[in-house]
């Protein structure tokens, strides 16, 4: 019987996240429960509480849960960490026996919040997409590249984006955005 309980340690522990007063700042989105759901969106039913968007590149968010369209049969489901085990049970039982895949990836990636009046310029140091509000409105999400790392980019507000990045690429993304902070005005 184990007498020692392992603690959760984020890859971002000990990192001072950069910010530039009034222009942009980077913060840790904190731990989360994450699932990749693959299959037909209707099979999930109401089990997630938020409907899975079927319009490409869109996210639905409500009451601390979010479903992000990543591909025509792939969604990233986000929720609070504490919510994770009950959600896993609810989703698994809803999908039981159905042709679909649910995989827990809570630890696979980390979330970063980038916000500020110059957030578009900051991200465009490494992201080649047009982040203008007319072309990348609030609620849009996509997998893309930030310099040399793959990320999921989700605009949650006019001046705020959430980045989801694989655990081992997070230090690179933080360092890259730190560097990019010097290039915005």
């Amino acid at each position, binding site marked *: 019987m184990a007498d020692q309980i392992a603690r*959760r340690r984020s890859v971002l522990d000990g990192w001072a996240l950069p910010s530039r007063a009034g222009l942009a700042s980077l913060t840790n989105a904190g731990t989360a429960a994450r699932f990749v759901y693959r299959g037909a969106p209707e099979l999930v039913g109401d089990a997630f509480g938020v409907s899975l968007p079927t319009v490409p590149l869109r996210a639905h968010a409500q009451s601390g849960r979010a479903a992000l369209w990543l591909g025509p049969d792939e969604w990233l489901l986000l929720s609070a960490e504490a919510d994770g085990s009950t959600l896993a049970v609810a989703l698994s039982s809803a999908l039981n026996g159905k042709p679909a895949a649910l995989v827990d990836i809570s630890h696979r990636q980390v979330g970063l919040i980038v916000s500020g009046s110059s957030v578009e310029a900051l991200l465009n*140091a490494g992201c080649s997409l047009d982040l203008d509000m007319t072309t990348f409105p609030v609620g849009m999400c996509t997998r893309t590249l930030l310099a040399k790392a793959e990320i999921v980019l989700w605009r949650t507000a006019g001046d705020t984006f959430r980045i989801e990045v694989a*655990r081992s690429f997070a230090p690179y993304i933080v360092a890259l955005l730190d560097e990019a902070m010097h290039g915005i005005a």
Partner: protein
Amino acid sequence: MAGLHRTNGGGRVDRTKRLSFTFDGKAYEGFAGDKLASALLANGVHLVGRSYKYHRPRGILSAGAEEPNALVTVDRGRGRTAPNLRATQVELYDGLVAESQNRWPSLAYDFGAVNSLFSPLLAAGFYYKTFMGPRLLGSNWAWHKIYEPLIRRAAGLGKAPSLPDPDRYANRFAHCDVLVIGAGPAGLAAALAAAEAGARVILCDEQAELGGSLLSEWSVEIDGVPASSWVDEAVRTLAASSRVTLLPRTQAFGYFAQNFVALAERLTDHLGNPDPAAPRERLWQVRAKEVVLATGAIERPIVFPDNDRPGIMLADAARTYVNRYGVRPGLRAVVIAACDSGYAAALDLHRAGTAVAMVIDPRANGDSGLAGSVRAAGIEVQIGATVTATRGSQRVSAVQIGRAGTEGRASTGEWVPCDHVVMAGGWTPSVHLFSQSRGKLAWSDDAQAFLPSAIAPGQAQRSAGACRGVFGVAAALDDGFAAGRAAVGREPLGRTFKVTHDITDFRGIAGSHGAGARGSKAFVDFQHDVTVRDLKLAAQEGFRAIEHVKRYTTTGMATDQGKTSNINALAIVADHLGKPIPEVGLTTFRQPYTPVTFGTIAGASRGDLFDPVRRTPCDAWAQAQGAMFEDVGAWKRAHYFPQAGEDMHTAVARECRTVRSAVGMFDASTLGKIEVVGPDAAEFLERLYINSFQKLGVGRCRYGVLLNEAGFIIDDGVIGRIAADRFHVTTTTGGAARVLHMMEDYAQTEFPDLKVWLTSTTEQWAVIAVQGPRARDVLAPLVDGVDIGATDFPHMSVKAGRICGVDARIFRVSFTGELGFEINVPADFGADVWEAVWREVQKHGGCAYGTESMHVLRAEKGFIIVGQETDGTVTPDDVGLGWATGKGKRDFVGMRSLSRPDMVRSGRKQLVGLLTADPKRVLEEGSQVVEGLRPPAGTPALGHVTSAYWSEALGRSIALALVADGRTRIGTRLNVPMPDGDVAVDVVTPVFLDPKGERLNG
């Protein structure tokens, strides 16, 4: 007074702000708003450089990016030395330190000038002929021993800094509706029109001030206000719009497919004391819906004998220095005008107080609409005349006037004393970016220039103003405004600008106007010292295509890429060949338009940010333990864990010994992991891997081998069945992304009928391998809810359980041949679980081991590593894995290929073990294996050594090798030739240790 040669007033310099600077160590003063070139001229400094080949004294030819002569090095301290900057573009700041280039020991007394005496040796094709020279003393002896060292020493166009670049460089991806390149009259008008329509506009210009040629105008008025004021108002209007981005000091240098344009923005070089943390330059990568090219035109020099003396400059430059910078470049000028800009220069110089001795117009019937005004100012105008010779050592002192068309004959015309010669040879539209965009150019007889014709597919663009042959301020404004409207889909009918004092004739002449007397040189390409004679020699020697002439003579090949020389060179070659210019063709315009720093292109991609560095959850622990790391793909993996006094060999020997005798732990987190889920998951894996999966029980594992369709091994790994419809697939570290990509390919395109989905879980799990006879003892106190006993948890099985209170997937697998487990825990728990396991490992006399020991331990068991024992040409049978093939399978990826004739022939290379006759001798990986001793050169090898290590368990060296018909050679002796002699090796089976696998079941 910042220079004795200032006009009394006017211009755009701020005469209240004095700036001091040095050039070649001598102190001078200039004004805010000056360029280095204007400030030097204001101080009477004309000699600014030495030419590339002949080291002739050179002065300032132009006032812009096209400058071929005035190249300087600006030194901003440690590592901040920038060579080859054009003095005409360098903005003056207080404390600027600039040096001339290509001279030794000094600019005025340059040793290399003796090259002029040997100039017949340096004529066209010198480099080519030298490369192809006779082999009297072996292959190009003379080149390596004499010419190259000499040329390298003599031909320095500035020196690259030797220290690392200390500056920061930024990058910005940007999108816009309309990108306007060039902020002269056409560009400003285009931007105004597009901005009026509410479009997202980016307007860039190479200069610090927007306005282009309008900044050099004195008398022109636009809509009732001076041009200069009109510019200020236009810029204010644009700056007020949130949809407009103004980018001064920004050179568009590359135009790529689908309206992708690269811009280089200079951010701090113009500041005397910049914030050291601020980026020096920024690369803009712009994707524009529409591009308006308003890149203007460049004035051509006139090609006459000795036309390169300091004091000889372009008419447009003379106007710019006088009107914009308030500088008089000379006291007494001669103007050679083949178009209006020469006449306008004469008027501007005269007004500013320069004595204009004469205007000569080389056109036989040439006469400008401005000639009357020039004569009215009391200036003599000669039509049909040209300059046939010049004098002056470090500055022009006189020119000889002769009749035009007396080429080749010594002229006996009058000598006119002067210290300033102004040339207006006509204007060449700047079609560089248009041409880079793959647009087609067409020769216009009317404009005597190549003009934009067909636009390349996928490029939404239009040219406006002088760059498409629409000259004059009024025409350029109207054309630009119409282009701006068209770019946002509006009717081209816009407004007409009312312009006074406009000039309209820019056509001029091209080609040579007298090669001059023997010994004189009529320069065409100033930067690469190419003369009329060189071009004629090339034509005489049979070069017909302009691209060949370019390479043979090097005309147009210097850092200025022939901006001032191309059309003259073309005209001379065409004339000599008796062909019209369009038949001779045009050389390709290449990026960059002007040189771009490496820093700008690299941006943040250097040092730690050059590439992502991936580290595992257990990495910090390994670092704290003093582990040595190796790169595996982007991952840092612990290579070995040296203790005090240990080198790699002794550390690895100890680690291997400890694993075999007690227990070791290993960070396997980098292994690729893919969760394969769905009702058809087993069938999918059955079709992908050579093994059978349908009948694999839940909780059981299988070693999977993955082939490509050609039948060759590309990956391997353990696959565990977590549930009926769920598999935990592992891949090699380097193969993780590749295997997922391949699986997606088959799932999506070949087997879309299968209900199966793939999700990468590589980073979801931290993986801790615990291997060795005491492995179970290590885990026992840490796990709960799972029986890890031998009966209940046999080799090649997987269980869900808890370790340290955390949900885990525990595999009973072994890559060492010992009793082994691989614990998968969610990554954020990895560090803590690792340390808990470490505490237990220490209790059992165990150790942590790195990838090197892992390699040795698996080699002792004959386990392959994909990419080491395989190289993309190796089948399962070749490496003895035929047994893994599922019995009775009808198909899997690569199966059909395994029965192709080449795959079943004899003589294929097969995996074997090699034991050196000398047990202490460790072979080198990659060395060749041959039959017999000292085979003659050219004898094909039988194969090669794929792995070679010192085996602590066997107390001797071991090796794995791929050898032709290797299995039939077991028991024979072969040789591995090495520089110090042949190494005899005995061929054995590739399993060196515990061939029955008894240790696994400890």
